[in-house]
């Protein structure tokens, strides 16, 4: 389960006339700002080391300009790295020749774009078959059949002969998704794929993606600048700042143990109680387990439920103590009221509870 599908090591990307010279400066400790002001080069990726695991939705997050798009475009080498390696299923993408690269893009890594990037002169059906026809590996009969299959999977039945501009944004991006999925690639790159959509449509698309993923188990690299989206979709989240990786972990890690102030500010506005799970709050040391014993008025919650649910139950039943149990009913830990209160309030107020 925990196999790395994409392994990035020592990846730098510098934009400018002489990136290799600029790289020397960076290695000698010149920082991003100085490089831009004095050397007129943009340090877009700064020594990225990152593993992206098989069958996961791996989110890459960061503010605008932090290098997300640059990073994802290296995975299928739409951009050439200044230095570094990227292994996909063990093969180094950075050393592939044109032919190998085309095979990689046709059969292994596919992509969904922020602005959809559909072919405006082709119908929905023709757009979905675009990738399949390029490789010439699939017989025409199968191509049409496949296209209709994916058309139905993304709920676009009936519009197959429309042109993209006749569809709403949400529908266009479903065409984009179908076009990518029809290639049967294991890896799906999604660069802010839902960012251009209205909030409601966006949630629908997230649901559709989660639904598809529960069955397809692709390796999805999903870029977003929206933390709610990241928390909702990501099995793991990697956070970029100014081209450097600052933290990678699951939602609980990022919320509870932010690596630095940048991450802390990122997570400040998140509705934590919806995301955090009860295990994150419980104490498991022997003292806590021994001194507090469950009684008739105590509350038990199953591990894995979210804090929001717990709070609503606490407010209703006003228990004497709160216990986390596993599915078999065995006691795992205890949650203090103070810990719960600290979770609810925003960070600046938290100190007043100490």
């Amino acid at each position, binding site marked *: 389960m925990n196999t790395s599908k994409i392994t990035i090591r020592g990846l730098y990307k510098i934009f400018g006339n002489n990136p290799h010279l600029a790289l020397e400066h960076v290695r000698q400790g010149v920082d991003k700002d100085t490089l831009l002001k004095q050397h007129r080069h943009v340090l877009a990726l700064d020594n990225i080391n990152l593993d992206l695991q098989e069958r996961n939705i791996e989110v890459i997050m960061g503010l605008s300009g932090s290098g997300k798009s640059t990073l994802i475009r290296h995975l*299928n080498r*739409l951009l050439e790295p200044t230095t570094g390696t990227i292994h996909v299923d063990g093969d180094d993408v950075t050393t592939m020749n044109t032919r190998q*690269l*085309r*095979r*990689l*893009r*046709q059969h292994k890594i*596919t*992509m969904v*774009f922020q*602005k959809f*990037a*559909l*072919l*405006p*002169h*082709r119908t929905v059906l023709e757009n979905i078959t*675009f*990738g399949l026809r*390029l*490789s010439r590996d699939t017989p025409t009969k199968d191509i049409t059949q496949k296209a209709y299959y994916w058309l139905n999977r993304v709920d676009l039945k009936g519009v197959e002969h429309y*042109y993209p*501009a*006749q569809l709403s944004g949400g529908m266009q991006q479903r065409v984009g998704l179908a*076009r990518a999925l029809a*290639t049967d690639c294991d890896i799906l*790159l999604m660069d802010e794929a839902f960012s251009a959509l209205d909030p409601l449509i966006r949630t629908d698309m997230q649901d559709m993606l989660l639904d598809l993923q529960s069955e397809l188990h692709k390796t999805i690299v999903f870029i977003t600048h929206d933390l709610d989206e990241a928390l909702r979709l990501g099995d793991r989240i990697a956070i970029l700042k100014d081209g450097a990786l600052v933290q990678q972990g699951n939602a609980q890690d990022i919320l509870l143990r932010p690596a630095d102030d940048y991450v802390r500010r990122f997570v400040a506005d998140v509705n934590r109680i919806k995301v955090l799970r009860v295990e994150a709050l419980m104490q498991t040391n022997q003292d806590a387990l021994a001194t507090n014993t469950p009684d008739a008025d105590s509350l038990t919650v199953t591990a894995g439920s979210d804090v929001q649910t717990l709070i609503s139950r606490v407010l209703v039943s006003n228990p004497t103590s709160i216990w986390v149990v596993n599915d078999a009913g065995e006691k795992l830990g205890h949650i203090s009221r103070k810990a719960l209160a600290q979770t609810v309030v925003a960070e600046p107020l938290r100190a007043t509870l100490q």
Partner: protein
Amino acid sequence: MDWLEDFPQMSRESLRALQKSIDLGYREFSRNYGEAIENFFDPLLQFLVGLEKLLLATPWPIVILLLAAIAWLGSRSLRVVAGVVICMLAIGFFGMWEDTMRTLSMITVCTLLSVALGLPLGILMARSDRARAVLTPVLDVMQTMPSFVYLIPVVMLLGIGKVPGALAVVIYAIAPMIRLTNLGIRQVDPAVLEAADAFGATAWQKLRQVQLPLALPSIFAGINQTIMMSLAMVVIASMIGVKGLGQPVLKAITNQYFAMGLFNGLAIVLLAIVFDRVSQHYGKRLQKYREETGQ
């Protein structure tokens, strides 16, 4: 202070000598290679002569029917077809049928030639910034140079007749074809091109499936302009023996026959309208997606 009042020009003799040496050099060139070049262009001559003969030999109702059919295939518009038929009938009624057929065949060949040469050059110019850097000034010169000037080297090389006429027309009219092909391809949304790359398209697949179809509006504007410019040049080319509607115009100028010039001029205008409407409608029809989506 002489040099302030009179421009310090090279002496009359040396200027003459310079021009003479250029002319001599060119004459030398045309004496040595003229025949080879003439042979090279022989297929073009056959084509020009053949098409003209065919158009002249075909009974006029059939030609009109054929033109109507082409107009219909191109435009799918009854109005355009009716317009074409009326224009041709008017031309025939006023006694300009034969000259019009000659011009028609000339224009057809020149346009085909311009497209066949201009499209690849435009693609080259779009794909390589170096090619663009070379071609842009050349095209600028070609378009601003007075069109009569083209006649001189062509005549020196190939003499008077259809082939030099066609060459002069093509040199004059090809520029917009090249320019607008380049422009159309360069204007294609880079996001769509990136998508084609991301799905593993080859350069050729990208050109055929993405760039050319999306550049079509611009390419068709180029074809349209090329046709219009060929029509304008045909009159000038009549000075070097291209038969057709241009010759009566020329005659009208030298003899001050106003009505004659007007009629033949109007015939050229009618031909221009016919070509323009049919090619524009065809260009639009090729982009059905734009119509249906109201873009």
